[in-house]
């Protein structure tokens, strides 16, 4: 077989020129700063807002962002979605690298592999066309922190230790950096262990405990004035991770992620920024039902994903008012998952749930930015992707003869994306941005090849098909922001139509495989889905060391028969007031969501009541010689509210009153 490959360089627009060209809406810009840690006062407030406490996980941080929806199945491993888009429509990348989970039940989103300690920034792209990979819903890119050369102190580090009461949770983390003139190394490790947590109201949620270990090593070497070479390695092991909303837990999960990059940064030159990266990662996942009572039949469900890839990015100055960003990428992902069921006295029952398959992707993207005058700018973004998916083993092809005549035929798609953004300063303080986009995506491996994948959300077995039409979206965005040195107000609204919307369609004549499943659904193109929503943020730097941050979001989704789409969050607000007095910082948080009555009955979705939750946090910071100490403490969910968010699976309540303490020192 021959696969046509398109190779070139393309662009990553959310990078260097974001603020300059002003083509992004403010909310995205805020997010980008969140963890990129840019040191302006205002952005630091927002960072503190998202990183509510030092023990927060990357998914805790994401959960506070207005455009992010977390699909929660357990205390850990929640899946990040953007706006109204589902998981097949959103790409999650680590430092531009593709990584595919090894779990057929989506227990292992890529966000679990990057600890906040190791996070330089989170780039969230919601409007316009995706640059780093074709998708209709947007991209979450977790940028890894880099070691810094030429630091004043050659050796520096930090230690943190914490405890939380609701889950008897321990958190330990350490970080150590070496910095020389031409090279630097950064290492970090985090260990988290939580017991079954106590939900609001007092009930203990069985199988919600987890234990995991994460470590990272990063080294940078200065090749010359403008070129650096960097190597990154991430190690993540989960020993037991409970999923109370699912019939199984993670028995063991492991990820190894490695990359080597060369990067150029030379301001004012024609090729201002360049990066070339080679990477590989592998994820192993083993589900476990031995801790569950009354299991009709025990089963092993291992899965593995392996991805290798490479990409190049370059930012070009074409003149004072024109920029071009290019990106080209190629990757290949191998995926496999199986299930073996054990019944005493019976032979083992074995099947592939993701028949061994390989997806080869190659894409090019370009973003052209032009500023016709000092007030406005236009950003045009294009991306083309060539995808091929095929089954790689005879066993896999054999098994899919159950569903199709020619499982040896590969699935090939050419995906096209285009967006145009126009931004204009209406006055010195008000900026408006409008974006229109067309985007396409590849079906997921589950949508193509899934074989009786049990979905605990609606209790159906899901089956894939390779003749799905390409899902595409027409998207429109508007945003308005007002900023002064003390106040930032931003509003963003979006609407989109997703055609050939892929969903499971009930097949009444097909029998289930999973014991207790209600039926079989097969992925199908469902006409279209309409989506809309809005986000708002308000940041105020009040006098006397007080800061106020508040974010709002509202999402709406319906299919072509006006039936609500599943997993659409209702109106939500998170607000925070923080006051700094000397060495003390005090913060009050309020989180609330309205009830969600718009549910998808076919997906057996249930209505979710409203909730209100309040947190209080106190921190004390001091220095002893060259060591900085922070002691943090607080109480989350003060009123012990028994609540769940609409996108939480299995009607499992979230943790109740949680008292935490945390000691950090850095030297």
């Amino acid at each position, binding site marked *: 077989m021959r696969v046509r490959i398109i190779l070139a360089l393309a662009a990553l627009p959310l990078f260097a020129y974001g603020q300059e060209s002003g083509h992004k809406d403010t909310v995205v810009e805020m997010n980008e700063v969140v963890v990129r840690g840019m040191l302006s006062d205002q952005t630091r407030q927002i960072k503190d807002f998202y990183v509510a406490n030092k023990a927060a996980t990357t998914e805790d941080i994401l959960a506070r962002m207005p455009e992010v929806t977390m699909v929660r199945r357990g205390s850990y491993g929640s899946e990040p979605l953007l706006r109204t888009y589902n998981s097949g429509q959103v790409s999650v990348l680590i430092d531009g690298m593709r990584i595919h989970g090894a779990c057929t039940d989506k227990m292992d989103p890529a966000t679990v592999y990057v600890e906040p300690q190791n996070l330089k920034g989170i780039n969230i792209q919601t409007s316009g066309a995706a640059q780093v990979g074709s998708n209709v819903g947007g991209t979450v890119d977790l940028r890894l922190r880099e070691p810094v050369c030429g630091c004043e102190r050659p050796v520096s580090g930090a230690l943190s230790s914490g405890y939380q009461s609701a889950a008897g949770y321990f958190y330990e983390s350490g970080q150590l950096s070496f910095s020389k003139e031409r090279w630097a190394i950064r290492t970090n490790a985090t260990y988290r262990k939580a017991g079954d947590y106590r939900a609001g109201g007092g009930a203990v949620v069985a199988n919600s405990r987890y234990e995991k270990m994460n470590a990272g090593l990063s080294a940078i070497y200065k090749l010359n004035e403008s070129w650096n070479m960097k190597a990154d390695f991430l190690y993540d092991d989960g020993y037991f991770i409970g999923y109370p909303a699912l019939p199984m837990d993670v028995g063991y999960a492991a990820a190894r992620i490695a990359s080597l990059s060369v990067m150029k940064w030379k301001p004012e030159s024609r090729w201002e920024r360049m990066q070339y990266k080679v990477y590989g990662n*592998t994820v192993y996942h083993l589900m476990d039902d031995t801790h569950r009572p009354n299991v009709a039949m025990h089963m092993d469900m291992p899965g593995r994903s392996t991805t290798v890839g490479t990409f190049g990015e370059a930012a070009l100055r074409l003149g004072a008012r024109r920029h071009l960003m290019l990106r080209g990428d190629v990757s290949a992902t191998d995926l496999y998952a199986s299930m073996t069921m054990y019944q005493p006295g019976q032979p083992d029952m074995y099947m592939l749930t993701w028949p061994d398959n390989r997806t080869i992707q190659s894409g090019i993207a370009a973003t052209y930015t032009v500023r016709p005058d000092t007030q406005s700018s236009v950003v045009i973004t294009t991306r083309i992707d060539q995808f091929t998916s095929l089954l790689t083993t005879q066993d896999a092809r054999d098994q899919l003869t159950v569903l199709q005549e020619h499982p040896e035929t590969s699935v090939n798609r050419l995906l096209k994306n285009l967006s145009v953004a126009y931004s204009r300063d209406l006055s010195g303080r008000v900026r408006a941005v409008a974006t229109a986009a067309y985007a396409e995506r590849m079906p997921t491996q589950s949508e193509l090849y899934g074989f009786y994948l049990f979905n605990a959300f609606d209790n159906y077995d899901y089956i894939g098909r390779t003749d799905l039409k390409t899902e595409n979206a027409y998207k429109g965005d508007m945003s308005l922001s007002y900023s002064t040195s003390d106040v930032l107000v931003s509003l963003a609204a979006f609407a989109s139509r997703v055609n050939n919307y892929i969903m499971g369609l009930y097949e009444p*004549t097909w029998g289930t495989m999973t014991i207790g499943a209600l039926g079989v659904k097969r992925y199908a193109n469902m006409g279209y889905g309409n989506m809309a929503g809005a986000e708002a943020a308000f940041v105020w730097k009040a006098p006397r060391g007080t800061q106020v941050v508040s974010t709002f979001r509202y999402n709406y989704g319906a299919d072509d028969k006006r039936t609500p789409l599943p997993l659409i969050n209702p109106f939500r607000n998170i607000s925070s007031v923080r006051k700094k007095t000397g060495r003390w910082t005090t913060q009050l948080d309020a989180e609330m969501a309205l009830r969600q009555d718009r549910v998808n009955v076919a997906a057996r979705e249930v209505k979710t009541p409203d909730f209100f939750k309040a947190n209080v946090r106190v921190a004390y910071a001091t220095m002893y010689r060259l060591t900085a100490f922070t002691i943090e403490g607080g109480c989350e969910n003060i009123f012990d509210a028994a609540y769940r968010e609409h996108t939480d699976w299995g009607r499992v309540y979230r943790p109740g009153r949680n008292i935490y303490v945390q000691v950090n020192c850095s030297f």
Partner: protein
Amino acid sequence: MKNFNKITKTLTFALLATSIFGCKKSDNNVTTNPDPTIGYVKIASGYADGAATKVDVYAKDSAFTGYNKLYIALTDSVTNKYVENAEISLMPDMNMTTMSHSAPFENPASSQAQNMLFPCSATFIMSSMGGTWSLGVSVKNLANSKSGKAMLSLKVKDPAAARMFSFVSPLDSAKYFVGLVPGEKTIVGANDLELVVYRKVSMMSYPADSSLTISFEPTMPSMGHGSPNNVNPVHTANGHYKGKVNYTMTGTWKLAFVLSKGATVVDSTHYIDFTF
């Protein structure tokens, strides 16, 4: 060590991923085996006296109640070479002290051996527990035109799970035998489902029957599920009915059959368990 393994795997995969762009994997065909009986077991052996020929009967497995695919090897007892041109006819016989009966069979379709062997079949309708089986093999060696008959004794066992069943049709009161023709290899996926149907006319005559309509449903009793997209077997030739059975996983499957003649269901009580 485990990690090292993973790394090598990753590297190999990287190489594979690059190689897939350019090259096509060549199929290496199986070369002809010098000994044609490798992979078979000898289930009976004897001499066809008048034909000066040694008769060896091979099968994939020892003989069992049900449809047995047999492979007859003829050896010239003088030259010790395989005889590749011969007319062969079978006559299975079971001696049960008070009476004897035959069984359904299929003679080799051609007088020309395929890779030294003559494929044929016998459907043993009971095990050796009830009497003594022998297989009569009449041979006419076409090379020297000599004829003779061998009477070979053999043991027939009941398999762990039945591979055939019989029923009496309410329409004609005749007894029908339905056997499962074993496939080459069973996969998780779509498999050929081949059945053979014989009607008992007398103790010695069991002609192939093409008059039935067969439907079936595979289920996995230990889990209580079935499989989609199965194809009911339809008659092709010589009492053989071919369809498709889909196994969605390994393990024990139960194939429940409904046999009809015209609009009348003649049997719906039988099933065959299949484990792989």
